[in-house]
């Protein structure tokens, strides 16, 4: 493969990984494996590096592809391994135990407590970070 084609393939894989990850974020298999985009960025970086060392053809597309995929690889790894990590804390949650009750207002201002469901129905509680 020529240097230019390798560079194009590298860019395609890098951008395709972003498009694929974003558009399939609701699929648990994709969402729960963020390392997938890192692997794709690593493959794209390797292809761009190959393109750079190819003896024939123009070099600038290869360098462009290498900077793009390299930056994505560093940025993606930094996000996945550092930014998105949640430190372990000691929680009150133990299977078989009852966590403390709470009282919070719902969207219509009505108070919601856990005890109000006692003897009524199971509850799935979802704590999420919020959108601020």
């Amino acid at each position, binding site marked *: 493969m020529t240097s230019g084609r390798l560079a194009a393939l590298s860019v395609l894989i890098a951008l395709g990984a972003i498009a694929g990850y974003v558009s399939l974020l609701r699929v*648990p298999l994709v*969402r*729960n494996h*963020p390392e997938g985009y890192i692997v794709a960025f690593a493959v794209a970086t390797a292809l761009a590096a190959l393109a750079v060392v190819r003896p024939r053809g123009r070099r600038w597309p290869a360098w462009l592809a290498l900077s793009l995929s390299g930056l994505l690889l560093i940025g993606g790894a930094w996000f*996945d391994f550092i930014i*998105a*990590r*949640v*430190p*372990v*804390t*000691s*929680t*009150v*949650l*133990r*299977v*078989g*135990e*009852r*966590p*403390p*009750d*709470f009282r*919070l*207002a*719902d*969207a219509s*201002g009505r108070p*919601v407590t*856990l*005890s109000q*469901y*006692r*003897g*009524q*129905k*199971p*509850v*799935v*509680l*979802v*704590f*999420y*970070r*919020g*959108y*601020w």
Partner: protein
Amino acid sequence: MSAAEQAGLEIIAVSPDSNEQSQRLANGLRVSYRFVADRDLAVARSWGLVHPHGGPDGQDVPRPATIVLDREGIVRWFSITRNYQVRPDPADVLRAVRALQTSAAMVRDR
């Protein structure tokens, strides 16, 4: 999850968002969760579910967690993520919930 299964279950979503923000989210996702506002993280804090300085501006945020409580309010299953991009597989949550609903049906049948 079928409508009947959902009717026999309450899904409560807890976040520090204001109720207006949660309402927008609920409308956008078209879900029938009960969104409750834990504005100052008092509940998250008392449950030990706070990621200190985890927010984009260094503010404290909740640790994303999913907890299944049975009819008596006892924890039957829970999952707390170590990477906030990763959430429990809905199939696992559903399995935990169905296990409760089946055991309740067996009690009723007796």
